[in-house]
């Protein structure tokens, strides 16, 4: 029964419907009927016909309108419609005006002709459905292979990074062993330093990887964005001073208490400020007076802008292009190549944006914009879940 082709017969003339029903049943089709446009639309939904025979002149909603609606809907537009028209006046609308009927036949019609058309359109329908299935299948395959390619790329990048660390560890261990054999305390230290430094890299990698793979919902709570920026600057001051880098704070006093994601903001700013510091450390222009500037600004459109700029080494086009690519690092192996990616992830999770401006040899500016929700106006209390 299921394999039978289903025909929906739509005509306000009961005799025509009865006649056609009998004939089609005799040929082994399954049928259903509707006597006006409204019923027709309902039947299409419930009966899911393979072919529709549609009379034009009907009460309530006429055939044109039914056809237009069916052809305008993604779900029903591929069901073939054969319009039944009065003899001698096949309207232009049906023929050319593109209400989308697939075929038409004039009344009173020759049943054999109608039967043939129905057979033809059934075949077309089956063919189209098959093709669609095939396309759907290919699409799924493509998505799957793209995902595999992405995983493959990630794993390859990871393996490359770990191989380097492993070689560093092995080198350190080799030096330690040699030193022990020959009782040389000096090179014992060299070797041990290498082991420690490479262990540190593994820890950093694991933390970054976990952070990157974990889906984190912003934890909204009351906080003072300027305070967060200030904390980050304080945290970085020590190591910046070591390299003669000055950290300048430029905070917008109109930013008050807000409901934001303080942990996320802290993490992002820390990453950006330490990047800025590194950009100064890697800068070979010794004559510069290195400065890292941290700016906050409340914008008119209700976003807070956090800006971290430096006058360090800056980036060339190659680096800029790969900036948000996993495992890419310009820090001579010292970065995992995931830091900025994690920052971007947190910013996106907070419905914000991150942009970069950089000139080789001149420095870089990273700008984060996050939705600012003033405690006073939002009326939000304490924690709030992500919308």
């Amino acid at each position: 029964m299921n394999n039978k082709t289903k025909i929906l017969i739509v005509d306000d003339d009961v005799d025509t419907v009865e006649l056609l029903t009998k004939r089609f049943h005799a040929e082994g089709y399954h049928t259903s009927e509707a006597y006006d446009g409204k019923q027709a639309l309902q039947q299409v939904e419930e009966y899911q016909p393979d072919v529709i025979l549609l009379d034009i002149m009907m009460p309530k909603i006429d055939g044109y309108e039914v056809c237009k609606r069916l052809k305008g809907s993604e779900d029903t537009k591929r069901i073939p419609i054969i319009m039944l028209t009065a003899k001698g006046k096949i309207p232009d609308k049906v023929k050319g005006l593109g209400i989308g009927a697939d075929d038409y036949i004039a009344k009173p019609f020759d049943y054999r002709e109608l039967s043939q058309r129905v057979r033809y359109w059934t075949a077309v329908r089956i063919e189209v459905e098959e093709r669609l299935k095939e396309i759907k299948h290919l699409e799924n395959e493509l998505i799957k292979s793209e995902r595999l390619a992405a995983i493959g790329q990630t794993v390859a990048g990871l393996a490359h990074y770990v191989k380097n660390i492993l070689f560093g560890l092995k080198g350190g261990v080799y030096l330690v062993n040699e030193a022990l054999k020959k009782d040389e305390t000096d090179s014992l230290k060299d070797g041990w330093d290498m082991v420690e430094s490479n262990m540190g890299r593994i820890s950093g990698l694991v933390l970054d990887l976990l952070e990157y793979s974990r889906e984190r919902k912003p934890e909204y709570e009351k906080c003072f964005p300027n305070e967060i920026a200030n904390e980050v600057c304080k945290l970085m001051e020590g190591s910046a001073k070591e390299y003669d880098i000055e950290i300048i704070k430029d905070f917008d006093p109109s930013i008050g208490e807000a409901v934001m994601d303080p942990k996320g903001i802290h993490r992002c700013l820390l990453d950006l400020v330490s990047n800025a510091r590194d950009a100064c450390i890697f800068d070979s222009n010794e004559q510069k007076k290195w400065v890292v500037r941290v700016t906050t600004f409340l914008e008119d459109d209700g976003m807070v802008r956090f800006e971290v700029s430096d006058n360090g080494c800056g980036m060339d086009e190659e680096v800029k292009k790969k900036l948000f690519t996993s495992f890419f690092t310009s820090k001579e192996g010292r970065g995992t190549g995931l830091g900025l990616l994690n920052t971007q992830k947190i910013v996106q999770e907070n419905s914000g944006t991150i942009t970069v401006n950089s000139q080789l040899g001149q420095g870089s500016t990273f700008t984060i914009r996050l939705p600012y929700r003033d405690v006073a106006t939002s009326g939000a209390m304490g924690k709030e879940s992500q919308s």
Partner: protein
Amino acid sequence: MKKVLVVDDDVDIRKVVSKLVEKSGYITIEAKNGVEGMGKVREDKPDLIILDILMPKESGIRMYRELKSEEALKDIPVIVLSAIPEKSFFRSQKVLDEFAGQSVPEPEAYIEKPEEPGELIALMKKILG
């Protein structure tokens, strides 16, 4: 004393390899990419080059081909030390050979990280004597 140029963008790898070179009784020169590496080659005329492949600015693949196409430099032995599989390196060389219409000789040795450091030292000694 013989000089060994270590070209690697990873500062920790440079440190380790330099120490291994020094322990073996040679002098180290360091460079962090292909551009710097070629500069050091011309300046210091090393007796051996230990070359990484994946580096920013100029990769080891390009530096290697530059080196081999210069008459005065092409006889400096090269040990490639990379986390890139050996097969991938040789395949890429073959492709580049065909593309350039000239064949570049193979490096003296290819060491895939993380090979045992003892292996690198043994090779160095074999090449430099």
